[in-house]
């Protein structure tokens, strides 16, 4: 089990609530995108931590569904969590964009509207 100290409890809760409320189709799309990402940048502990960082950004941005994973991947380029993986992350982002295009997924995140 990887340590998740980078996530505060509120963020963990947001991630779990989003996961709980997602449709099976969205869960499948999320898992496929993470699988594609890990297959490009590696599924070792560092690779997993990059996934966690992407999920942290999604939760803090108020997304409803983790199926928006691919829309947030490139945001971690240049961060300390992704040090040394920038090229692979950019490639993964393009591959996931192709996956999203192929499956007619939105190019905009599903966010809560703060009115």
């Amino acid at each position, binding site marked *: *089990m*990887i340590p*998740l100290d980078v*996530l505060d*409890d509120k963020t*963990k*809760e947001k*991630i*779990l609530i989003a*996961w709980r409320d997602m449709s099976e189709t969205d869960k499948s799309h*999320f*898992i*496929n995108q*993470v*699988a*594609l990402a*890990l*297959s*490009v940048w590696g*599924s070792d502990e560092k690779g*997993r931590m990059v*996934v*966690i960082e992407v*999920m942290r950004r999604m939760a803090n941005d108020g997304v409803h569904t*983790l199926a928006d994973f691919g829309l947030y991947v490139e945001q971690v380029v240049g961060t300390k969590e992704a040090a040394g993986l920038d090229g692979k992350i950019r*490639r993964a*982002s*393009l*591959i*996931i*964009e*192709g*996956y*999203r*295009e*192929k499956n007619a997924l939105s*190019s905009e995140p599903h966010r809560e509207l703060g009115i």
Partner: protein
Amino acid sequence: MARSAAEVQEAPKKKKAYDEKSYDAMLQQINGIIDLAIKRGKTFPATAEELRDLEAKGSKSREERKIREMTPTPTEQKSPLVKAVPTKEMKMTRPAEVAALALEENLNGASGPSALNLGKWAKGGRQAYDSA
């Protein structure tokens, strides 16, 4: 009834025990989600060729989106507010007054409380400007 000293001491312990339990459960669940993705990755039908195809598709999609974002939409090209302003002969040139006049013109004939209030606001703005 006041709580005994023992009860007061016990309460934070209970809360801490609960928090730790839910914290561990959350950790396990999030790790479980990522494990699912890793397991899927091992059986995911994405060969090197398929990855290249997806990458090419992604590049194309990104380029098309950039072009779309750079192309003005019909709404941006023909905004009714912008169109209304040059048709009126007026000495007002400051943006706020121009917008107020345009609003007044556009709301002429509109109904409903919001439209009414906006129209009043627009008239008020213009009168204030005229009397200045």
